[in-house]
């Protein structure tokens, strides 16, 4: 079963049956011109900038050459070579480890939340709404409020002090890395929860009844019957979540400000500071291209796993 059908269960029932599909498309009168407005705009605002980004990464573009960037000197791969010496590898490591840690930590939380809201009880709607709060709040709001709470004299340290623990500095120094991970976990786990919940809802009622007849304990039912249903969708959710963690600019930017402390200098921050504070546009474009390569790995895995197409004519091409 394609993943999309588990993601949007309400659509699945309405999918065209094979008989219906066959008499669908009229090849002769395809109104492809309807693609023009959206297509032209996408080429203008997406394709051209993407190609330009590749070009910028190969030219020596800084604040002096910016006004006449077409004439900026071509320097080949020099920007890429220089970026390795400008903290690129450090940022790649920070980004990847942060993204993987955050993803791994959100999986048990998300699955637990899905399990406790699957069976109906009074007040479940409220609990479900509560679970969505961290996800619905804009990132910049989440980051602003955590930044305030984690100030040296903020509420977190005040609470810790009452318990006899010295909180210390959360927003600078080595602990800032864990601050970033923890706040990201707090904000991002509902995504796993939503995906796990959708998968749980696709478990047939017969499966539950069969396990009840067999009289298995709740734990072995969960481990052997229910969790296998979750594996595919949750793995897919992990890929997407990892991508989103790697690309998250707002959280580190608002939490720590730019330039970020060395321990949280993730890829988006490095690219941002290199281009808009150091004004080395060529160098930062090279770094941005590297971060594109970084996300390409989970992205291709995701694109392969998702069945994009339900249209049989299209699938053949």
């Amino acid at each position, binding site marked *: 079963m394609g993943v999309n059908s588990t993601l949007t269960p309400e659509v699945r029932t309405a999918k065209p049956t094979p008989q219906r599909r066959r008499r669908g498309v009229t090849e002769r009168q395809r109104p492809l011109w309807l693609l023009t407005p959206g297509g032209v705009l996408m080429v203008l605002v997406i394709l051209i900038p993407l190609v330009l980004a590749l070009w910028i990464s190969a030219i020596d573009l800084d604040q002096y050459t910016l006004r006449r960037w077409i004439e900026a000197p071509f320097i080949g791969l020099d920007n890429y070579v220089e970026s390795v010496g400008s903290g690129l590898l450090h940022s790649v490591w920070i980004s990847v480890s942060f993204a993987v840690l955050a993803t791994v930590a959100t999986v048990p939380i998300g699955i637990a939340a899905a399990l406790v809201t699957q*069976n109906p009880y009074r007040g479940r709607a409220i*609990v479900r709404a509560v679970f969505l709060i961290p996800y619905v709040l804009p*990132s910049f709001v989440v980051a602003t409020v955590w930044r305030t709470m984690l100030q040296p004299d903020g509420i977190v340290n005040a609470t810790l002090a009452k318990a006899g623990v010295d909180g210390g500095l959360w927003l600078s120094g080595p602990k800032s890395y864990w601050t970033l991970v923890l706040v990201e976990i707090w904000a991002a786990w509902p995504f796993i929860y939503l995906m796990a919940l959708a998968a749980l809802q696709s478990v047939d009622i017969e499966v539950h009844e069969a396990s009840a007849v067999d009289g298995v304990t709740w734990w072995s039912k969960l481990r052997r019957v229910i969790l296998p249903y979750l594996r595919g969708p949750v793995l897919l959710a992990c890929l997407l979540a990892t991508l989103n963690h790697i690309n998250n600019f707002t959280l580190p930017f608002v939490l720590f400000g730019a330039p970020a402390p060395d321990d949280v200098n993730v890829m988006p921050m490095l690219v941002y500071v290199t281009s808009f504070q150091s004004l080395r546009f060529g160098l930062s474009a090279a770094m941005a291209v590297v971060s594109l390569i970084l996300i390409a790995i989970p992205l291709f895995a995701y694109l392969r796993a998702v069945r994009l197409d339900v249209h049989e004519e299209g699938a053949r091409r």
Partner: protein
Amino acid sequence: MTASAEAQRLLPRPLLITLTVLLCAMVLAPILYIVLASLNTDVGVAGGEFWPSTFSGESYTQIWTTADLSTGIVNSLVVCALTAVASALLGTTTAYVLVRYAFFGRLTILRGLVGLQSIPGTLMLLPVFVLFSSAGNYLGLTVIGTRWGLFVAYLTFALPFSTWVMVTYLRGMPRELEEAARTEGASTLVILWRIVFPLSLPAIVVSGIFAFLLGWNDVLFASVLTRPETQTAAVALQIFGSTQEGGALPVYSQMMAASLICAAPVVLLYLAFQRYLVGGLTAGGVK
């Protein structure tokens, strides 16, 4: 509880209650503090109070003069609403052709739509910035710092996303009505306007709302492409937050109030369209 409901039970009751309480506490503890702090005074919050010694709504009135939040909110509303309308309408038209007709390159476009949502924002911002800043030089146009510039920049993310939301919706829509209309001799435009748009209105609204939220939640593009008169709510809050530290008395209560004000439109949209939006959240994985 019926036998069938009993069979579907996943967790024993004590475990279920423990987990639910823990998870709710994890979410609600910070939220409770934010709300309480926004109802406190700046002095109270700076003194580390959790429960305000005096409740007051002052922070909600003072914030409008302390920070330039109203300009930010108006700018955000204008730019994001424009983005929402443009990408929902163009997205629907594009998605309709992508779903209903087979043509060369179709699968590539579909892949691209999904892939584009994962492109790092910094990678898109850079060339957009270079293009916009040189527009002044080569074409004599000022783009950076204008709302139009920001609108175009937001389309880079909103357009593929709205299109993808519409693709997932339209391919589940039965085509009988369209075929009947075509047999009656209706043109594609008539079908699109009279049948597809009305039937998929909920999805169009959702894709528009998502486009709106992408813009509303953005800090990256707005922090580079705006000037003080055109800055968005997100940038206003971020600047306000980063200028607080090191001052004599940080106005943290007002900051919490400002945060809640910036979150309010988003929360209201979710409350109003909860059923539709949650489905869309999992479709694209974009916040």
